[in-house]
């Protein structure tokens, strides 16, 4: 008989691993969720005031700006990039929106700073594409430049726009009992989840992050995909800035939370299990990452921890989280 007649499947394709992947995906995904639950339970026991709708809403409201920024960062990281300029964009938004509100009124101010966020993101993306430089340094540099703009606008002083009509509306009102910053966070989260999971663009983001050459030869506009992820990140940082500045109505070049924001957002993304190497990850993971880190801070506040214990515990939690992710992806392969 000839070889051609041997009509069997010539590849011993493995069907078995499928179930195993599904199981490990559960470990992977819910390992971290389990960690969050464990934290919730122990904090509930340790502090009787922890488990309340109020406290939960507070946590969300306090961390909405981190989550919004981290959602944007997730896209950039999946596409293989890195954005250290978000803290500067966030702070710029606070200063610029307050300044603009005083000069052109609230609606135009809000629109302009979101546009500025997009423009900064676009500059980040274009600079790192054109210079073929790793976005780490490029966004570190643009971050410094954008901080310069903030100081230029404010001269280092506070810009108080709290009396401009409507300027503090976002930060101080709630929709159906949910503070508006939290609403923005939820909307951004859902929108980006949809973008990543269901659109062709989302798929290109993963492809570009995992193997840009493969994406390129498949006809994906690699440059355009990368630049747009930075635009999304810039817009998210601007929204985060708005969510915070409209709480008090006062813009300030060294806005609260700006200095640690970039690293904090990236930490949340990675703690959630999105790979810093690109090509893989999800918005819901980032949400879990933000929540985990936020719960730790909240718990430490509730329990009145001494400064050095706070640091040591926060650091350990991060390491445990990465460890869990590693265990889970072990289980996978």
């Amino acid at each position, binding site marked *: 008989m000839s070889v051609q007649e041997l009509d069997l499947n010539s590849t011993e394709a493995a069907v078995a691993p499928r179930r195993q992947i599904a199981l490990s995906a559960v470990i992977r995904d819910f390992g971290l969720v389990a960690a969050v639950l464990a934290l919730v339970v122990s904090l509930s026991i340790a502090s009787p*005031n*922890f488990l309340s709708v*109020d406290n939960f809403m507070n946590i969300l409201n306090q961390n909405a700006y981190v989550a919004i920024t981290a959602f944007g960062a997730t896209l950039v990281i999946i596409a293989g990039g890195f954005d250290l300029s978000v803290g500067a964009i966030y702070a710029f938004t606070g200063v610029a929106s307050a300044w603009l509100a005083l000069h052109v009124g609230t609606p135009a101010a809000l629109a302009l700073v979101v546009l500025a966020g997009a423009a900064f993101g676009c500059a980040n993306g274009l600079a790192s594409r054109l210079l073929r430089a790793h976005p780490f340094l490029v966004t570190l540099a643009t971050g410094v430049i954008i901080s310069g703009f903030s100081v230029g606008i404010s001269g*280092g002083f*506070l810009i108080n726009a709290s009396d401009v009509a409507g300027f503090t509306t976002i930060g101080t009102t709630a929709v159906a009992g949910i503070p508006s910053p939290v609403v923005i966070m939820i909307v951004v989260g859902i929108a980006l989840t949809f973008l990543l999971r269901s659109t062709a663009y989302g798929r290109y983001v993963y492809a570009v992050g995992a193997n840009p050459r493969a994406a390129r030869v498949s006809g994906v506009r690699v440059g355009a995909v990368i630049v747009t992820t930075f635009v999304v990140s810039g817009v998210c940082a601007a929204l985060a800035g708005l969510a915070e500045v409209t709480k*008090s109505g006062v813009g300030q070049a*060294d806005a609260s939370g700006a200095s640690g924001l970039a690293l904090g957002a990236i930490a949340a993304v990675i703690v959630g299990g999105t790979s810093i190497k690109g090509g893989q990850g999800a918005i819901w993971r980032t949400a879990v990452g933000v929540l985990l880190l936020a719960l730790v801070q909240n718990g430490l*506040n509730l329990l009145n921890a001494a400064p050095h214990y706070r640091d040591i515990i926060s650091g350990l939690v991060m390491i445990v989280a990465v460890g869990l992710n590693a265990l889970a992806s072990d289980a996978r392969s």
Partner: protein
Amino acid sequence: TACSSTEKSGGSAAAADPVSGTVDIAFFGLAANNTYTQSMFKQAEETAQGMDAKVQFFDGKFDASVQSRQVQDAITSGNYDAFIIMPNDSASILPFAQQAIDAGIKVSSLEYPIGKDPASVDLQLDGLTTQVIEDVVFGAESIADSANRACEVYEGCQVAMLWGSRKLPTDAVKVPAFKDDLDPANKLVAEGDANYLEVDGFNLATDMLQANPDINLFVTVGDQMAGGAARAVTESGRTLGNKAGSVTIIGYGATTDGVEAIRAGRWFESLALVPKDMAAKVTELTIAAARGEEPSDDERSIVQNSLSPIGVMASEKSLAENPDFVGQYSTQ
């Protein structure tokens, strides 16, 4: 200035000749992004203008090593007759201040001393023209006394403390000073760091109220954090004021906003900081020294409280007695 730059950079340990023309001053701020610093700098500029002097600002970025470089580079540049330094780190700036003095530059320190003990009010550097500084230990004791007074209206008074950052030496020394002076009957139920930021103050106070719903008093070491705490109190549905059933606030700085809140009865008191008066004083003395007129011995170390027109604390009473007083910087 009429002087040639080589003369200024002298480099020798010999005392520089008195300046006859415009006095050039380098002002090393804590950070450009800091209203307290900015308010001091603007005042310094204003004072200098009336005395034929010019002040240049250096942005210390809250980073002591950035500041050390700036001091050293400013010596090298040879452009300045005098330095006014707001030290980001009293200890690490010391050798550079010394270098400046050795180079014949008049050096004064503002807000914090230059020397190895940031909590001391004694002069720690020979040849320093003057220091116009905050007495941080006295400040901490003062807000503890204020807390004791505020607590009088509360049954089993519960106190929450918002520090800036206990990792900073100038904050760390406040902690024992405050705790020692707080009446043991008043319980410190919560404390944390809010990084001299309004939003962090808000977040921390919110969490504290969550854990200890019966807090009567928030004490802070910065008005911006006090503002955040006040917002947390009202947003949690409580009322502000020093009476049973309300929560009150003690600030630190007597900022424009803090003064307003005290006058309106929302806050209890705020430690009076007078950055403008401090800056005016240090600038005057420094320019005079550059012109050959050394300060008198009791002008060598000036504690800011002595400059305050309203006493140690901005309170309902002290403000009523000084109806024209407005805060000398703003936070919120």
